[in-house]
């Protein structure tokens, strides 16, 4: 418990540093942000009005403290284009993105773990070679390329799934989740399979595995109970670190499959040069990434009691 609290507290400075970095990056907009947003034809009066609305007339440190206190209160400001609260917009589409991320995580672990275990157990035999080639292809595919290829084959050629997600019911939304989740799940399973394989290979060489084998523990039992349980730490680390990439890939996948979510929101923020929406969404992403890191650290302690005591 004490360990968990310590980990959560350690996440706070990282989060603050990320917020600061995002704030500064968005302020680097070359020239006058108000002019960029309104275009060349804007009158001096409307430019001034927008500057006051955005708080651009205040000194930088005031803008920063306003921004930071806003974020801490859960207020990400309003969209420059629609004028709606960014927090509300983000919360509205968040379930869709998180649902996609969760489904891909299930698929990624469900495929990647067995693939990695098989590759390690049958090392330098065909399951190993097939697994390694498949995971190398997965590592080399950008998410949007994988998505487009799946869309072409399964939605357009075979017509198993709708090209454009249908609204409404459970079965429809599940149907439109399959291809995007497979896209992300396949890429993630490549990472998982790779780490699982090398982590399992390390463990399988240990003395206690030989002991278990000599004792006559049934083959698959010792692979799962003895070897996999001990190979879990590096796997947890990689899955936790991968969460950020997963969310990044989810953005591209949502665009390809035309799903509502943070990705589509980001795309529209880019197209309309809505810098405050972009900043707000990045804050949401940063919060999730740090949260994932903290959860990973805590799981680390659960999986290996030594971590909790040491350091």
């Amino acid at each position, binding site marked *: 418990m004490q360990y968990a609290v310590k980990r959560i507290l350690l996440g706070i400075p*990282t989060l603050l540093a*990320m917020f600061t*970095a995002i704030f500064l990056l*968005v302020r680097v907009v070359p020239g006058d942000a108000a002019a960029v947003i309104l275009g060349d034809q804007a009158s001096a009066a409307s430019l001034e009005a927008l500057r006051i609305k955005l708080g651009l007339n205040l000194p930088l440190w005031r803008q920063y403290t306003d921004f930071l206190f806003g974020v801490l209160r859960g207020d990400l400001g309003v969209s420059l284009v629609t004028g709606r609260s960014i927090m509300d917009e983000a919360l509205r589409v968040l379930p869709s993105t998180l649902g996609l991320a969760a489904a891909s995580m299930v698929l990624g672990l469900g495929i990647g773990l067995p693939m990695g275990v098989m590759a390690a157990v049958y090392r330098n035999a065909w399951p190993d070679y097939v697994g390694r080639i498949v995971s190398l*292809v997965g590592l*080399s595919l950008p998410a949007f*390329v994988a998505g*487009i290829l799946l869309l072409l084959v399964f939605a*357009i050629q075979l017509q198993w799934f709708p090209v454009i997600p249908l609204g409404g019911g459970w079965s429809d939304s599940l149907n439109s989740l399959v291809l995007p989740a497979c896209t992300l799940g396949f890429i993630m399973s490549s990472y998982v399979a790779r780490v699982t394989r090398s982590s399992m290979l390390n463990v399988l060489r240990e003395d206690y595995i030989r002991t278990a084998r000599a004792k006559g523990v049934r083959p698959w039992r010792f692979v799962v109970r003895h070897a996999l349980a001990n190979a879990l730490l590096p796997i947890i680390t990689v899955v936790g670190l991968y969460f950020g990439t997963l969310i990044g890939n989810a953005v591209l996948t949502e665009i390809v499959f035309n799903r509502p979510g943070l990705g589509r929101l980001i795309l529209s923020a880019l197209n309309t040069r809505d810098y405050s929406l972009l900043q707000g969404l990045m804050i949401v*992403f940063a919060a999730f990434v740090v949260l994932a890191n903290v959860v990973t650290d805590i799981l680390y302690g659960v999986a290996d009691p030594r971590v909790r005591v040491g350091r």
Partner: protein
Amino acid sequence: MRMNAMLALPASFYRLMGRGGFFGWLGLALLLAIVCVAVFAPLLSPYDPLEQSIVMRLMPPSAEHLFGTDSFGRDVLSRVIYGSRVSLLVGFVSILIAMTVGTIIGVVSGYIGGRLDQLVMAIADVMLSFPSLLLGLLVAAVLGASLENLIIAIAITEIAPFIRLARAPTLALKEREFIEAGRALGFGHVRLMGVHILPNLIADVLVMGSLWMATAIRTEASLSFIGLGVRPPTPTWGGMIREGFENILDAWWLAVFPSIAVLLTVLALNLLGDALRDATDPKYRKR
């Protein structure tokens, strides 16, 4: 000494490749082929990649146009060939910048140590935990879409791994006798770092560079797909996939061929990088 270390690199590269096995050589051959395509693009491409033709719009692959034509009647094969130039250029230059800046920061930070080192590592950790695609997206969006800005955006996302990679061996190296001997001889800090520490870690940095170039090319394609890449009409793979995606219902070839090009390039770099890393990493060498 620095020259010797630099000259020894090709030789040690061959030694490494000898241990890298079949997949390493396959990756190298594939990569060389792609580089040749980019260099000799004008000779290899059957048409001008920018030449439009209204009568030849959206023609499926045929003997005349092996990869078909796009919605402006441009030859897709020629555009895929020319697209390799942008991808390789952006991948190579951005990694070169990230590698140079990251390695210098890492060596200096590790060499000086103390508070500065702690601060640098804290910043690097924050950069590492931010998804590189989103960081690149934010930087590219703020700077505006152009070739230079794309390179800068991707370089920024990949500095942090090189800082870590260069710093760790520096911490160990600076305690070694030969550095102490150099200091006793009155060598300056810059000379100690540049001539005595850097050559000892440059091989690892270059191996990492080939692995990260794969990521850089993937990020370039992704940003171009979102519309933050090099402006049309310059052919880029990501941009072509974006155009193909808009016509996906009636012209599958537009998206498929540049997709295969991206996949092969990233795969080649991953194969090569993996083989080199396995050969340099003592943890893998034992097996």
